[in-house]
């Protein structure tokens, strides 16, 4: 057992002395996690990554509703999300969009308010005709679809509220006129009052209850998904790098030397596997710790995190050993390892959320330690504890055991561990 540990610790030390390997094992995933933090808005405090969306407001209406819409974009509530600039020139505003200087232009034409709120002195008698609708134009930048979509949603919501007030006013007024309780000649002032109170009309007919309002609502830190995603991606590199050391020792002659010493082949192989496993644990552990220290990521149940890391590294080590068993040269392990790292990265959800994948790919993702590991980390970040991790941990342990078993059979068949 001591020999096994000595071999394992020796390999661990060797890898951590290799600066090139450290760049790939630690620096690359750390930098990519930072990048992902920017994309997801984790560092800017927004929920989507979008902030300070440049939008041009052209308010040619200059009346109650036009001004209200312009005020919405410069409101305190949207201060972080929107960066509005005012313009009075429609063509100049459109040019800014065409030149990719802004995400969208909101053009409020002259007469917008009057097309909704009746002008003073309007009679609601039989001669009343609805004014021609005047449309707000949202001129969007095709290369900033997400930002433009947000601008459009804000305008839609504003118009929807306006429309709500109009419907309420018109319904009341026409009801009163039909009941003979209101003179059509005086209806305009009454409608105006109703409309102006429209914002106070609480639309509580149907309540929308979101699960965020529940007591069990949990703030999910997106980095608790992204950081392990990157760590697991580069873990595949580490396990193949470790596998390479077996073939390196063989070609350099140190493996046969080890085997003529009073050390059994099983001890040597076990020590090598232990070295790979310890390196992987150290790598993922350091990245998890760094994310906690630098970004304040909360991982949830500590025991669950530790056991999940051990299980994920065990599963990945199985893959590393399998590659080593089938490869003939170190270069082959390098190529296969890198390819597997990238394939497992995309299949396992390190690059994109698995939900976006076709169902066949989601099924296929289950062969990767990345998918099971991320599943476990997400469960923990959502408040789960060790008992909730039974499925991913079992799957990872099973994966590691089966792959290691196959690798041993192939090692024996190929005589790699023979003197």
């Amino acid at each position, binding site marked *: 057992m001591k020999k096994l540990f000595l071999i394992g610790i020796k390999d661990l030390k060797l890898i951590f002395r290799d*600066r*090139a390997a450290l760049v*790939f094992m630690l620096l*690359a995933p750390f930098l*990519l996690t930072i*990048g992902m933090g*920017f*994309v*997801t808005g984790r*560092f800017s405090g927004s*929920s989507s*990554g*979008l902030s*300070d*969306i440049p939008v041009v407001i052209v308010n040619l209406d200059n009346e109650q509703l036009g001004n209200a819409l312009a005020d919405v974009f410069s409101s305190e509530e949207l201060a972080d999300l929107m*960066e509005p600039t005012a313009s009075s020139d429609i063509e100049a505003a459109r040019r800014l*969009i065409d030149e990719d200087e802004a*995400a969208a232009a909101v053009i409020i034409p002259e007469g917008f308010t009057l097309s909704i709120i009746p002008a003073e002195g309007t009679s609601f008698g039989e001669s009343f005709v609805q004014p021609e609708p005047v*449309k707000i134009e*949202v*001129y969007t930048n*095709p*290369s900033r*679809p*997400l930002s433009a979509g947000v601008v459009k*949603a804000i*305008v839609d*919501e504003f*118009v*929807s509220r306006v*429309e709500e007030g*109009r*419907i*309420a006013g018109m*319904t*009341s007024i*026409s*009801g*009163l006129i039909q*009941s003979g309780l*209101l003179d059509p000649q005086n209806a305009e002032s009454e409608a105006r009052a*109703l409309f102006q109170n429209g914002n106070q*009309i609480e*639309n509580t*007919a*149907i*309540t*929308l209850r*979101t*699960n965020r309002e529940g007591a069990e609502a949990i703030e*999910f830190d997106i980095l608790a998904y992204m950081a392990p995603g990157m760590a697991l991606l580069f873990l595949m590199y580490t396990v193949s790098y470790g596998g390479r050391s077996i073939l390196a020792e063989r070609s350099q002659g140190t493996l046969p030397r080890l085997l003529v010493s009073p050390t059994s082949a099983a001890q040597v192989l076990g020590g090598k596997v232990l070295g790979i496993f310890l390196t992987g644990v150290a790598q993922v552990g350091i990245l998890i710790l760094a994310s906690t220290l630098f970004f304040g990521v909360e991982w949830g149940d500590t025991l669950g995190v530790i056991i999940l890391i051990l299980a994920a590294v065990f599963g990945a080590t199985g893959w590393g050993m399998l590659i080593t068993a089938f490869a003939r040269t170190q270069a*082959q392990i390098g*190529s296969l390892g890198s*390819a597997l790292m990238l*394939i497992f990265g*995309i299949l396992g959800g390190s*690059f*994109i959320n698995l939900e976006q*994948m076709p169902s066949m*790919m989601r099924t296929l993702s289950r062969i990767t330690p990345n998918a099971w590991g991320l599943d476990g980390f997400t469960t923990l970040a959502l408040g789960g504890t060790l008992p909730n991790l039974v499925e991913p941990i079992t799957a990872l342990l099973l994966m590691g055991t089966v792959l290691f078993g196959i690798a041993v059979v192939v090692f024996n068949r190929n005589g790699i561990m023979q003197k």
Partner: protein
Amino acid sequence: MKKIFAIAWKDAIVRFGSVSELLFFIVLPLLFTYLLAGGTPSGEEDPRIALLVADEANTAISQQMIGELETSTAVRPEVVSRDEAQSLFDDRRADVVLLIPAGLDLASIQSGSAEVELLQQPNNMNATVAERAVSTAIRRVSSAISAAGNAVQQRESIEPFASEAERQSYFEASLERARTIQQEAPERVTVIEGITEDQVEYDPRANTSAGQLITWVFIPLFGISALFAYERQQGTLRRLLTTPATKATFLLGTITGQVAMALVQMLLLVGFGILVMKLGWGREPLALFVILLTSALAAAAFGTTMGTFIKSEGQASGLSVMFGMVFALMGGCWYPLELFPPAIQNAVKVLPTTWAMQGMLDLVLRGGGLLDILPEAAVLLGFAAIFFSLGVWRFRYE
């Protein structure tokens, strides 16, 4: 010229000596492009967010709500059973689920007890967008009922109703009127997509195609550094000193070979974009060639400079992959640049990937031509000039 060609040919033989190189040259780039583009539907598919709806009420009101959701530009309702919705949500295979409980009808609305529940995956942008869409649908369904309720209150404030029956009758008449007004409501917002020269439809897969192309081509070009380190380690660079080949010939041969291989790789990926993804890469062949060439030159120049700083092949390989991935992410090749904070959007202008991506999007997304990509091409040539100068100046045989 013959020497340059010989060096380039030697590099090609070394690179493709192992069949596994094809994995990185074409197989993985195509796989990544295909899978990542699979997450972004083409223009022919429904791009709206799937919203699972479990309608246990099955009343006119719930049907009306689903009808409103169907007209939404943001979500696409899919009616499923409650168990199925809950199971898909628990497995995180659904971003958002709308549960309409039994008993949601006009009476429950009038009594103020009507409510629906929305289950949302945490920190999920689709779920946030869907919440807005559901709120809008509820508002549209509710607004007529609210308007009728308000009308009743207005009427009561002027003259009380004689009986509850009269009150209910007034409510129903008002509701009918409110619905008519709502149905007759004109469109008040028009959305016009910014003018591109030939009105190219926005296709998010164009981002994926361009982004993956840059990622997979830039990494091996940065890997020129590993080539230099390898030759230096093996002592073959020193041997060159004994041959009549000059430093310039060696560098030109190595870089020409790698850039030529990069161009072949780019053309294969562009071909995949045109033939399989039906993207408009081929509209301006000259402009496309200019942006591909300048991008390849900028990346090769960066790799050359890296090669003069890095000592071992192992370091060079690790660093070229790391720089390639980080530059790609930060340059907007994996996620749209608009998602980054404005300060970062400005800061990443120092990266060649940002300009390469911008130039390619000008072509494939905005339908631009040669004139439109000239600024990006000029910046990329600037990168190439600076880094080649630095690389040649620092280049040592040992």
